[in-house]
């Protein structure tokens, strides 16, 4: 048998340009899923400061001077963290909306309009994200 040529990366050359809705949805869902699980780990790590905080004095807790409250407050005062939170919201909202789309697809509902529902997820994600910016940024300055 003649050896045959493996095109490696060439295979995917120019493929993305023809990606249709379903493919983008798949990629975005993957991405957002990974971000979310990543966040879940960090989130729990940050919240764990609540464990040492529980050992603090009553007064400190009442005054909000425990490790936990301090950590959160100082994090929340950083603009970067606020922006990241907006990003997280966008990611979560997209994952939820597209996740709903996927659940419907699994139930065999709306397979015909799967591209439309993807675009709808995108637009809604955008809208919700923009609408929530004031709430998220409030008090950061």
């Amino acid at each position: 048998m003649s050896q045959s040529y493996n095109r490696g990366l060439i295979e995917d050359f120019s493929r993305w340009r023809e990606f249709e809705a379903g493919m983008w949805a798949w990629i975005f869902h993957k991405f957002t899923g990974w971000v979310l699980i990543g966040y879940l780990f960090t989130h729990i790590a940050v919240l764990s400061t609540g464990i040492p905080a529980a050992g603090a004095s009553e007064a400190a807790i009442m005054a909000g001077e425990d490790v936990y409250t301090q950590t959160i407050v100082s994090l929340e005062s950083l603009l970067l963290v606020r922006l990241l939170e907006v990003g997280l919201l966008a990611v979560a909202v997209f994952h939820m909306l597209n996740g709903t789309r996927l659940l419907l697809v699994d139930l065999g509902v709306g397979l015909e309009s799967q591209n439309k529902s993807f675009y709808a997820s995108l637009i809604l994600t955008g809208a919700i994200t923009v609408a929530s910016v004031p709430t998220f940024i409030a008090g950061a300055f």
Partner: protein
Amino acid sequence: MAERYSSFESGGRMWLFQRVTAAFLLVVLAFHFFLLHFVHHADEVSFLASSARMEQISYYSLMILFLVTATFHGVNGVYNALVNQGLTGTKRTVIKWTLVAASAVLVVQGVRTANAWAGIGLY
């Protein structure tokens, strides 16, 4: 001829759990976001407020369930994604158990935190 063995018997089950947890998360995550960013603002979070919420048994159990389902959903999702990209053999077994371990750590740590807030002595 493609092999037709099945070491993945529970494929259908895992698939179903992924969907069921997704449906559950859909509701709880929305609630979570709403409560902690819109009703209460994130920058107003304090140990006091958190523990006040956690002391309610219903909220506590919801959050534990939230943690467990999210962990399962997220980790199983990652595992599936890797398997779908062609992860096989020893590598796959190693990653599988690593993920299980990570999940365990996550859940334990999460429960401990919740306990701390709720004033349950176990942390």
